[in-house]
């Protein structure tokens, strides 16, 4: 049985209920089990290890899949795999359930040798306790969620903030040491819960100060003020004009693509001019950027194209009588094609709603077809450059250098980790590529996340690794409580025998 020792949690402190002598109270769930040393609570997930509340989980192994259906490699003759490393050696030991060590200088819980294609590989497997970590959330929507820098709240506590908007997406930065340990006890607890849920792909409800109410779940569409977002915009208003100008030609005389960032006006736009379109004389409000491209036609909001507009005529400033003509056909449409209206100018040059002709509707539908489904994506960002390294090597800077030199591959629960350039070992991983429920927590509060360092055995020896603690994979399989799940075929296999420099 492996344990998640929890060095940072003290034997129940100020917020623990009074336990009987020699027992600790587990506050991981409302049952509040009192647990004697060496015993587990009712759930068998938390135990009392030498006075510290400790998570107890089996070690998670991932068996490599071969076919596209993701079926696990069948073991020879239908017998349970004996751990012998055959030509396909299909098992990777993840940090999930591996536990951690304290004090830090102790070798990592598992240092696994797995010869692969004639190369001796070593994987150092641990669960890091991350105080310095956060989740970066990308929400595919143009809708206005709240002002940049606005606090993001959950259960009334600040758990993060709105950060720089990116193309077609609103970005949040959630969690982090400031909210985990820098504020009130409740702020820390709620932040920890939010981070755990995000990492484990659970939905989290949050409120943006001065903005909207949101439900975010990795791999799912965002829910904004109770409405599930469907589409990510095809591009900004100007880009939409640029993509579809030719397809509108001949079917409509003017197109206004309403967008919170840049609203496009076809006949004025470079794309319309290039097609020799006659100027339509439709003038929109807002600040002109370049011909046919307008900033700030409205306020940001939940209406057309991320503006607060629900009646598109509100952005029409004037109709130039020298250019417009009776019978002129005008389409107004949003950047996702979800909102549209069609008008024809009457004798008095007023915009009169009319039935949208089929060829024009076809292009509106094509805008929709070209939108990708709106998703929330969640990246874990954690700093592993601190004391965790001592579990890998006696000379921690050697691990840092080995990673920078691409001799050591870093994975989080088997998922590839991007290592941020510069100092330290700051890793970033997509929670959707990690195993389900890969994240844990300790009452510090801090987040527990799996991390694995894989490198050639010779390189491990060279960086001062704990060579006397290296165990063959077969030994782990024979002696450790474990469970096996299928390898995510989309992830590169960390044990492919080459070093990380290989293309």
């Amino acid at each position, binding site marked *: 049985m492996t344990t998640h020792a929890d060095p940072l949690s003290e034997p129940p402190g100020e917020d623990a209920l009074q336990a009987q002598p020699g027992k600790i109270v587990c506050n991981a769930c*409302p*049952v509040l089990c009192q647990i004697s040393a060496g015993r587990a*609570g*009712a*759930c068998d997930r938390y135990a009392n290890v030498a006075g510290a509340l400790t998570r107890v989980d089996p070690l998670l192994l991932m068996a490599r899949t071969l076919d596209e259906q993701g079926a696990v490699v069948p073991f020879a003759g239908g017998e349970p795999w004996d751990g012998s490393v055959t030509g396909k050696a299909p098992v990777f030991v993840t940090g999930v359930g591996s536990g951690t060590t304290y004090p830090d200088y102790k070798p990592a819980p598992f240092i696994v040798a797995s010869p692969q294609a004639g190369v001796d590989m070593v994987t150092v497997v641990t669960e890091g306790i991350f105080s310095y970590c956060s989740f970066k959330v990308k929400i595919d929507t143009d809708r206005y969620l709240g002002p940049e820098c606005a606090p993001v709240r959950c259960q009334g506590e600040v758990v993060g903030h709105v950060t720089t908007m990116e193309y077609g997406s609103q970005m949040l930065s959630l969690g982090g040491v400031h909210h985990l340990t820098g504020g009130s006890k409740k702020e820390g607890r709620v932040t920890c819960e939010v981070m755990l849920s995000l990492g484990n792909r659970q939905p989290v409800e949050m409120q943006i100060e001065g903005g909207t109410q949101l439900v975010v779940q990795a791999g799912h569409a965002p829910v904004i003020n109770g409405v599930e977002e469907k589409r990510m915009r095809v591009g900004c208003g100007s880009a939409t004009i640029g993509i579809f100008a030719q397809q509108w030609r001949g079917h409509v005389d003017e197109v206004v693509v309403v967008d919170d960032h840049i609203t496009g006006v076809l006949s004025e736009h470079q794309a319309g001019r290039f097609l020799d379109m006659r100027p339509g004389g439709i003038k929109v409000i807002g600040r002109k950027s370049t011909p046919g491209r307008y900033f700030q036609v409205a306020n940001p909001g939940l209406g057309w194209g991320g503006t607060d507009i629900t009646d598109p005529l509100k952005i029409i400033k004037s109709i130039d009588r020298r250019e417009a003509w009776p019978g002129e056909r005008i389409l107004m449409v949003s950047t996702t094609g979800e909102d549209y209206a069609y008008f024809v100018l009457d004798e008095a040059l007023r915009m009169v709603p009319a039935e949208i002709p089929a060829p024009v509707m076809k292009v509106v539908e094509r805008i929709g077809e070209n939108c990708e489904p709106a998703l929330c994506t969640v990246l874990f960002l954690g700093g592993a450059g601190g004391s965790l390294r001592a579990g890998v090597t006696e000379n921690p800077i050697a691990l840092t250098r080995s990673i920078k030199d691409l001799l050591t591959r870093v994975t989080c629960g088997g998922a590839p980790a991007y290592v941020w350039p510069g100092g330290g070992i700051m890793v970033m991983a997509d929670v959707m590529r990690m195993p*389900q429920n890969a994240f844990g927590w300790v009452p510090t509060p801090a987040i527990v996340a799996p991390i694995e360092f894989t490198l050639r055995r010779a390189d491990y020896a060279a960086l001062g690794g704990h060579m006397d603690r290296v165990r063959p994979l077969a030994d782990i399989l024979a002696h450790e409580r474990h469970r096996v799940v299928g390898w995510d075929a989309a992830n590169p296999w960390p044990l492919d025998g080459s070093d990380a420099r290989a293309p």
Partner: protein
Amino acid sequence: MGPTRARLDARRWHFQHGPIDLVLEAFGADAAAAAAYERAWRQFATVLDDLVGELPALRGEVALATDLKGAVARRMVAACLPYRDVFVTPMAAVAGAVAEEVLGALVGDGEVTKAYVNNGGDIALHLGAGESFRIGLVADVDRATRHGHRIAIDGTFEVTHALPVRGVATSGWRGRSWSLGIADSVTVLAATAAAADAAATMIANAVNVDHPAIRRRPAFEVDDNTDLGRMPVTVDVGALPEDAVAGALASGARRADDLLGRGLDWGAVIVLQSRVRVVGGVAAAARLH
């Protein structure tokens, strides 16, 4: 931490809160199943908190557990009351009662054709007309999961709509709760999951014999949060001679027969050291290897 849920595959969900782990599946149109999972999830959100609120009463003798408010708590008491002549607490039916309660929400208004909620082996079933479930029996959990995969099934039951069975439960000394008996497993089919849970506990307690190879300890010494006080619970069973096994099986079978006569179960499979006794209607439904 609050309740969490995870999708296991296209149709199955895993709900977990503290010591409760449920695997649930609803059959029917996609939209109906999706609505069913949301209903079940909403129901599940309060289950543990409600139980914890009445935990002291639920850990005491069933005869004294009156005026309970929670729906799950009341199901537990109802399932255990028939056994009030011996010491039993409503906790004997907690797993089945939770499964039953969440199944009720999962099934909802009839668009779900069949469904189950599996609470660590105690299973609540819903079967529409013409539907059936095939349920696997694992006699030796220890052996079955030793390699972390490939669980060997020792037998199967076919539970059809026509049978008066909507609950399946398993008890034994190796399981997560403590047993006074020595059965490796007692699997019971009954009208409801809570009834099956209570009956399995009672029959497993009766699978018993005195022998030096059996080690027992007062419950409070091995479990900090037990409802069994000083009662001797089984902590290890060594290899037993033929006559001891036969005696324990006979004792369990008598208890199962007795419950059958009182309508408290529909059938039971008792496993002890590779010997199997089948009682009641199970024989017709089961194929044992």
